[in-house]
């Protein structure tokens, strides 16, 4: 039971990092990203392949995954210059799917659907196997904290104000002399950086990654986390990611107590529940559980 809770806590951590990164990109800067699964896969495979195929130490591979996410984020942001936001949604979804298809098809490098085995783990030699899950949970928690502090710092800083201005009206921001393009690319790249980090942490946690984990539905769960939690509010995001994950994973317990539904029907029920969670939240609390605080000049 406690092993289960530890593993669930670790997964909540991955979700929180992804959701905080999306909140930075969309909630604060207003840029749509439906390719989260692609960024997550990028992080996981860059770090995984470096360790498994090239023997790079884990301590270098994880930062490399972050940098890969950063670069991918910057490149995707350049697309946003010409696109309306709903079209950008479709294009980013496409970026995510294409990354997944490449991973699936180029199996002489990525092992494709067979799954890539990664033996290296951070501090794997120092900590015994019985304490390791707990240590990993702590490691992920520290990463969540760092992500939260960075995102919160950006939100409160002058940069955060500029990003909100761009979100509300990019032309006005441009007229005020803000470099809209630079801010967009930078923010998207920072988001990509943290998504890459989440991917790398995931890869070294499960130690066996395969493309079917990185379906577009992952992006959906993260989007739901952000919308349910309250776009623009980092604390709300943490709550949102926790709530969605509890609905997604915690409902597995119900299955242990009833025999009415088999495993397949249970998993269908879970997804239905999550969908309802989103729709009901939006109907009752249109701006999410913890709405973005109104900014007034004195309090900042």
């Amino acid at each position, binding site marked *: 039971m406690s092993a289960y809770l530890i593993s669930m806590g670790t997964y909540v951590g991955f979700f929180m990092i992804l959701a905080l990164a999306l909140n930075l990109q*969309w909630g604060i800067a207003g840029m*749509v990203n439906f390719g989260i699964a692609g960024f997550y896969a990028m992080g996981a495979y860059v770090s995984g392949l470096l360790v498994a195929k090239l023997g790079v130490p884990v301590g270098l591979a994880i930062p490399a995954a972050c940098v890969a996410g950063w670069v991918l984020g910057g490149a995707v942001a350049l*697309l946003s210059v*010409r*696109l*309306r*936001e*709903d*079209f950008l*949604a*479709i*294009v980013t*979804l*496409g*970026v995510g*799917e*294409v990354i997944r*298809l490449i991973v*699936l*098809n180029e199996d002489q490098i990525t092992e494709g659907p067979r799954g890539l085995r990664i033996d290296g783990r951070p501090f794997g030699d120092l900590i015994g196997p019985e304490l390791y899950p707990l240590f990993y949970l702590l490691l992920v928690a520290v990463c969540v904290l760092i992500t939260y502090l960075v995102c919160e710092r950006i939100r409160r800083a002058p940069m955060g104000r500029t990003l909100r201005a761009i979100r509300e009206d990019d*032309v006005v921001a441009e007229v005020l002399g803000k470099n809209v393009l630079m801010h967009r690319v930078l923010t998207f790249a920072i988001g990509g950086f943290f998504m890459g980090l989440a991917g790398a942490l995931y890869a070294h946690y499960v130690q066996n990654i395969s493309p079917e984990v990185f379906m577009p*539905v992952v992006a*959906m769960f993260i*989007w*739901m986390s952000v*919308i349910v939690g309250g776009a623009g509010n980092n604390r709300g995001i943490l709550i949102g990611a926790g709530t969605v994950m509890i609905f997604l994973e915690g409902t597995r317990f119900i299955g242990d107590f009833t025999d009415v539904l088999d495993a*397949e*029907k249970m998993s*269908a*029920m879970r*997804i*239905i529940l*999550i*969908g*309802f969670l*989103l*729709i009901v939240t*939006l*109907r009752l609390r*249109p701006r999410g559980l913890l709405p973005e605080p109104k900014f007034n000049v004195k309090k900042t």
Partner: protein
Amino acid sequence: MIFNALVNAALIAPPAMAFSLLFGILKFPNFAIGGYITVGAFAAYTFNVPLGLPLPLAAAAAMLVTALVVWLMHVLVFQPMEEHSAITLLVVSIALTLIIENVIRLFFSADVRGFEIPLERPWKLLGARITPEQVQIIIWSLVIGVALHCLLAYTWIGRAMRAVADNPMLAAIRGVNATRITAFTTAICGALFGLTGVFAGLDLVIEPLVGWNLTIPIFAAAILGGIGSPYGAIVGALLVGLAEEATILFLPSTYKIGVGFVIIAVLLLLRPQGLFGTAEIRK
């Protein structure tokens, strides 16, 4: 190969037109179309196999059911959320697809099924294998295209639909009941999605993911043709059909889904208004 492309195009042209119409009125890309198509396929299956109706009747019943479902979803889910941004609605529509898909999974399980139709030997024509169903799909798709054109161009309700899509406020001033027209449009589009479900059941298989797999080609076709332009959607469907078949010559067939995305991305970057759309004036 050309023939396969034609079948592909015939399959995605009607829903692409419907998607275009819906986008014109609701102003957000509705990913729930995947769920709607699945509803159509399973409704037709239910009428056809367990209830034993002949396929044309089952198809008509499925169109009715899907039209009802699409209208209900519009009234229950999307209408009360009108003030939300297009992106929030987009996420809601994906959630809706997930809900529909899994409700179906709950009742039907994920097995692959097909309609109860007599198996016929495919015809051979110039070395291509052609099934009678594929010919039917092409013919019906043409009929639908022409009918939709007549509806939009020659009837007052079609004119009202276009007016509401163009400028709801102006239409309202001229005495058009926008709510009723929107309801009518959703029902028409629902019927088209239902029919697509039947076609997909004929040409592919009936399973909960059938609609989702068609969503991206449909989007690609609608965007390619210029969103909000139903005729452009037909041309878009033809081009997407051709492009998908052509990639099989060069790349493993698993990359087929990627083609739709690449078409969308390249086109949006070069010509954001689509091939036949008119450029919007940005403020």
